[in-house]
């Protein structure tokens, strides 16, 4: 803290100071964690952790669906908000989209008259359901001034309820081949990469992105500068909803079945990925590049635990610790940046 400005100094006397991008620190963190598991791998298992293509492939596949959600959640958190509903929206959209993707040869289809539909129908319905959930979140937050935490908590419970009510708890299965293809092989990863690139560019180079950071940085400043904060927040929550809907489609297609419990706790994983990746819960800071690195850290840790044969119960507890740890790290970062 030696560079704290002396308020009476002239501006010329101040040293040029530009923080190195937060993503670099996250990348270093990722490398360190990967190396730790590599060393543990040789010590405990007598084999390499990283030099195993199949393990890496499964790891990426596992995290990329949550990664799609995290892209939307990151944008919400940059505005200074939070989205707790994304996991439940995944569950609801998985059920609803899948019910419009069933084959006619399956006798117990949800809508026996609406089978073998072209694949765009279930996709559009899935994205539309996500959009609707995001729109309701956004309208509540922008116009009733309910805190985002409460508004999206309400959506979290409601969307989960819809997922269960939709088929009275029955799973929905037997999708068409073209729907199944959305989740086949590495397609989910490709969808994640496409979304990540798209939204990284949008956040960095468009007015939408600039205003997203401005609102999270100083909402009052954004308002008096003429930004329509309400309309912008609605757009951000809508985008987060659509991405959760997309994740629901991908997840159900990958599993070839949709269950009402799909996506439980995904919202917390997504928030953790964003925060580990340098997105500040106080708003104003974060990027999709960071979140992607956060996602990889998350994936490496989970995959590393499995590799080291750590019991599943411990894994859950450790995951809880990671989430809390990420938030503590964020609080610590905020304290420092407040003083600079």
């Amino acid at each position: 803290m030696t560079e704290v400005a002396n308020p009476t100094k002239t501006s010329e006397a101040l040293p040029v100071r530009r923080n190195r991008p937060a993503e670099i620190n996250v990348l270093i963190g990722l490398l360190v964690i990967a190396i730790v598991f590599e060393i543990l791998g040789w010590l405990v298992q007598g084999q390499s952790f990283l030099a195993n293509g199949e393990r890496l492939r499964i790891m990426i596949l596992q995290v990329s669906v949550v990664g799609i959600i995290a892209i939307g959640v990151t944008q919400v958190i940059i505005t200074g908000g939070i989205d707790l509903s994304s996991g439940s929206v995944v569950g609801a959209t998985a059920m609803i989209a899948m019910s419009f993707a069933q084959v006619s040869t399956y006798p117990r289809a949800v809508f026996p008259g609406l089978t073998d539909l072209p694949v765009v129908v279930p996709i559009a319905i899935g994205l539309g359901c996500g959009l609707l959930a995001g729109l309701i979140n956004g309208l509540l937050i922008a116009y009733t001034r309910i805190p985002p935490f409460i508004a999206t908590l309400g959506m979290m419970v409601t969307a989960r309820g819809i997922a269960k009510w939709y088929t009275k708890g029955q799973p929905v299965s037997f999708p068409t081949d073209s729907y199944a293809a959305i989740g086949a092989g590495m397609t989910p990863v490709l969808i994640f990469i496409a979304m990540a690139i798209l939204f990284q560019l949008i956040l960095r180079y468009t007015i939408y992105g600039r205003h997203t950071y401005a609102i999270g940085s100083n909402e009052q400043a954004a308002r008096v500068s003429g930004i329509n904060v309400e309309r912008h927040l609605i757009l951000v929550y809508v985008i987060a909803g659509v991405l959760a809907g997309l994740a629901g489609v991908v997840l159900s297609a990958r599993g070839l079945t949709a269950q009402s419990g799909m996506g439980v706790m995904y919202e917390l994983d997504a928030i953790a990925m964003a925060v580990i990746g340098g997105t500040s819960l106080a708003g104003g800071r974060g990027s999709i590049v960071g979140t992607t690195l956060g996602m990889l850290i998350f994936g490496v840790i989970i995959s590393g635990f499995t590799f080291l044969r750590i019991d599943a119960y411990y894994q859950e507890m450790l995951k809880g610790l990671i989430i809390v740890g990420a938030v503590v790290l964020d609080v610590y970062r905020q304290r420092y940046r407040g003083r600079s």
Partner: protein
Amino acid sequence: MSDTQKDMILKTVGLAKRYGGVHALEDANFELKAGEHVAIVGDNGAGKSTFVRQITGVEQPSAGEIYFDGEKVEFKSPIEARDCGIETVFQNLALADDLDVPSNLFLGREERYFNLGPFSILNERKMLAHAQDALRTTGVKIPDLRNKIRNMSGGQRQCVAISRAASFASKLIIMDEPTAALGVQETAQVENIIRTLKSRGIPLILISHNLRQVFDLVDRIWVFRRGRIVGAVDRSKTDGNEIVSLITGVKAAVDAPDFA
């Protein structure tokens, strides 16, 4: 409309603002002539910032009328006031700390390559060039414009906020306690920017507690006390003692402006 009113830039008639039961501003009759620099002084809570929020569209007044540049106006938002050429440096720095200098200068009026609504691509090169120009005109030196506001000193931040207002203002510029948190040299820099505005003929409303600064810079001083305007005196016809007694209420209202 008489000749004296023609060169009136801003005039308020019976302007009032209530927050619930709090009468933050009552019956404010204020006027500002073309090219004139005026100060608003008054104790904390006198209603100065409230007055600024009413005339800049940040809030809607509870009663009264505002005339700007000869026309009655009802600004529904700050952007409407801004589109009329009014720029404001609000008391709590209205900057986004996580953005750099050009982004802050152009916040809410970004340069774009082509219009795709919110997804329009920013013309960062143009904004950077304009930002360099704006800072040069106001004589503000900031080593790295791409640096985030968060990493700058209080003086640099305030200079950015003032440069933003100064470079876009065409009709009126309002500064609410711009030097309250600054050191001696930074204050001098801000005062220089204000003098430049005077020479450019842009009217100014300066809110300040610093009477030395007020007497140095403005033509006329408006005194607020407990939500009311209790005096408007020419700098040349008053002194610090009179102003202080008006601020504190030792001396009762003088020179209620005459709108005949």
